[in-house]
């Protein structure tokens, strides 16, 4: 789990103390007969990384477009608790690498800084900071089309934060890149969270959502079907039980509850609560001189949680 910043809160109760920077209430939007948003409701708080998870067509990109003002709600409302122009408060990182491929990194950053209204006096400094932040300093004069996928993704994000927005919306920022680059991107996002930026992120990468997001909102059919921290979601749904698997050198006839024996008697499996049950079970086998070759403990995953809530795989 990413270390939670001082401004971030991990439970709904704690979050209620703060005023949300974005409050989405009963959002509805349709493309013809297709309801993309169907009463979507959630809040985003300062210094929080909220992961929006959902299968394709669930309404993730639509809500980002609605927040950005590029699409209008047919019903409901979006409140953004910031003063000034909306475009100055928001940084939007599209799913595509939406930078000019035939410009250099420096030229892209300078151009987007200007378009976001960064004053000429500050622009040079902001660009230098962005280069350092995205670890692209050494390639500043390289054309974008010569960069690796990870570098392009980092530049994609850097171009959206030059104006220091209070809210950053990221639409699948890590799609198609290697784990190192992904890690680097989350390090970049951590530094934004530390200064209080609220981040809304859509992703298909359940493992990274589980490890990096402060809260998750699972969206399906245009509405939030569950939200909270991973532990809270587990507690409300499939529970926090861990799956234990044991392999024996010799065939067994019986095993203690809650384990159940395999047909050949060489394996046992079962769900146990927390770590307190494991020593008791191991002690039992030790007392009975049962030799164990392999012990495997599996924590419940977001994949299982997602499947439980939506009834389908994330990429369906």
């Amino acid at each position, binding site marked *: 789990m990413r270390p939670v910043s001082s401004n971030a809160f991990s439970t709904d109760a704690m979050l209620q103390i703060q005023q949300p920077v974005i409050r989405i209430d009963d959002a509805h939007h349709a493309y013809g007969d297709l309801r993309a948003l169907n009463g979507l409701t959630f809040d985003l708080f300062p210094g929080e990384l909220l992961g929006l998870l959902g299968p394709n067509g669930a309404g993730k990109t639509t809500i980002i477009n609605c927040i*950005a003002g*590029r*699409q*209008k709600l047919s019903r409901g409302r979006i409140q953004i608790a910031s003063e000034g*122009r909306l*475009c*100055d408060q*928001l940084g*939007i990182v*599209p*799913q*595509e*690498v*939406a*930078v*000019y*491929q035939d410009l250099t990194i420096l030229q892209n950053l300078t151009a*987007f800084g200007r*378009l*976001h*209204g960064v004053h000429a006096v500050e622009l040079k400094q902001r660009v230098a900071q962005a280069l350092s932040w995205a670890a692209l300093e050494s390639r500043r004069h390289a054309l974008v089309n010569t960069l690796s996928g990870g570098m392009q993704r980092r530049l994609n994000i850097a*171009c*959206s934060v030059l104006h220091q927005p209070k809210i950053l919306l990221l639409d699948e920022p890590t799609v198609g890149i290697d784990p190192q680059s992904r890690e680097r991107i989350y390090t970049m996002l951590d530094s934004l969270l530390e200064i209080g930026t609220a981040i809304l992120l859509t992703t298909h990468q359940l493992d990274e959502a589980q490890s990096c997001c402060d809260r998750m909102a699972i969206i399906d059919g245009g509405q939030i079907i569950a939200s909270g921290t991973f532990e809270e979601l587990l507690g409300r749904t499939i529970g926090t039980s861990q799956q234990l698997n044991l392999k024996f050198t010799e065939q067994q006839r019986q095993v203690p509850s809650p384990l159940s024996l395999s047909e050949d008697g060489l394996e046992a499996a079962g769900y146990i609560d927390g770590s307190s049950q494991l020593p008791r079970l191991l002690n039992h086998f030790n007392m009975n001189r049962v030799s164990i070759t392999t012990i495997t403990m599996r924590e419940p995953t977001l994949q299982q949680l997602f499947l439980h809530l939506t009834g389908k795989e994330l990429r369906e």
Partner: protein
Amino acid sequence: MIWTVCEISILRLWNNKQELALAFVVPMIFFSIFAMVFSRGVGQSVSQVRVAFVDDDRSSESIAIIRDASTHPEIKLVTGIGRTSADWPIEKLSRMLISRFKVEVVVHIPAGFTAQDPDAPTLSIHLFNEGVNPIGHRLVQASLAESIAMQLSVMSLAAAKPTRSEVVFASASANSVLNSNSNSTTTAKNADFAEPSVFKSVNAFASNKHQPKVAMVAAGIAVMFLLFSANGAGASLLEEREAGTLGRLLSSRLTLNQLLIGKWLYITGLGCTQLLAMFAWGQLVFEVDLVGHFAGFAAMTFATAAACASFALFLASLCKSRHQLHGVSVVLVLTMSAVGGSMVPRYIMSDTMKQLGKFTFNGWALDGFQKVFWYDQPLSAIRLEVFILLAITLLLGLVASLMTRRWGAA
């Protein structure tokens, strides 16, 4: 294996209906355009030469010759010009008629032409031409020769005299432009006047300076090139849309109209620079007089580049993808260039085709450049062309702005 490769290509073409249509429709369109240009043209109208007569002879013979000549299908008599200054020499008058009234050949029948001794004619009919159309004055000459022979024979018979006789003609100066109704009396004439030696062809615009035809060719090519170039630049709008960059641009402080104006300025500036470079090269290598016509060139270049830029943005706003834009722009640009005179000289086109050319950028732009480089006209003479091109610029720009609003909301 080879067949599979072939089959894949066929299937890809079949699945892409737009490309399939272009593959068969474009050749048919161009075949039709060139067929219309080189045959009798749309609506069966023939390619006619616009002719004005300046009759200083003012005899009944000269009037009869003009009347007969004007019945030839190749000749289109320009009427309604009226009288002009008596002081003007015929060369100046011809230039005025050509440049202002779009006359292609001015036929000057000198005073005393029909009265001179046909065995030893000292006076000639001058055919002042614009110098662009190499065929027009020859067609007129042939028609005139026939008319002279016909009229003089008729009159000889009517007078019941052998062919040659003396004639009395009223004197006139260049003030009696075509269609003047002279009441002069005439007698018969000799058909020998129809000999080619009696005609003299004069380029009305090349008498006092070197005037390379490449100036006209350059304008035609330049406008077509500009249209292609502008559409290429306009495609960047769709490229940005497809790449998601447009969304990012519009999430900044930039508005859609600012984006369009920025693109328009760039495309217009690029077009102006391209034409300047092209004509500067023309001046260096092909003796096109750019410096001497710079004001007119600048006005026409800006208006043409501006119209092309708006056209490019208009097309980009209509199309959904770069692929679609490419197909549409190829068809439209080539069609406009063919009809507007960039690919085929307009003087060989029928009147209907020439009129169709008025619905293209190329037609208006070429008219303007022709006035500047060929007819040496002042800025005031290209007001209409510049106005039309700027009106097109504004209209297409507004339509593009309206059409692209759906992108801002997408």
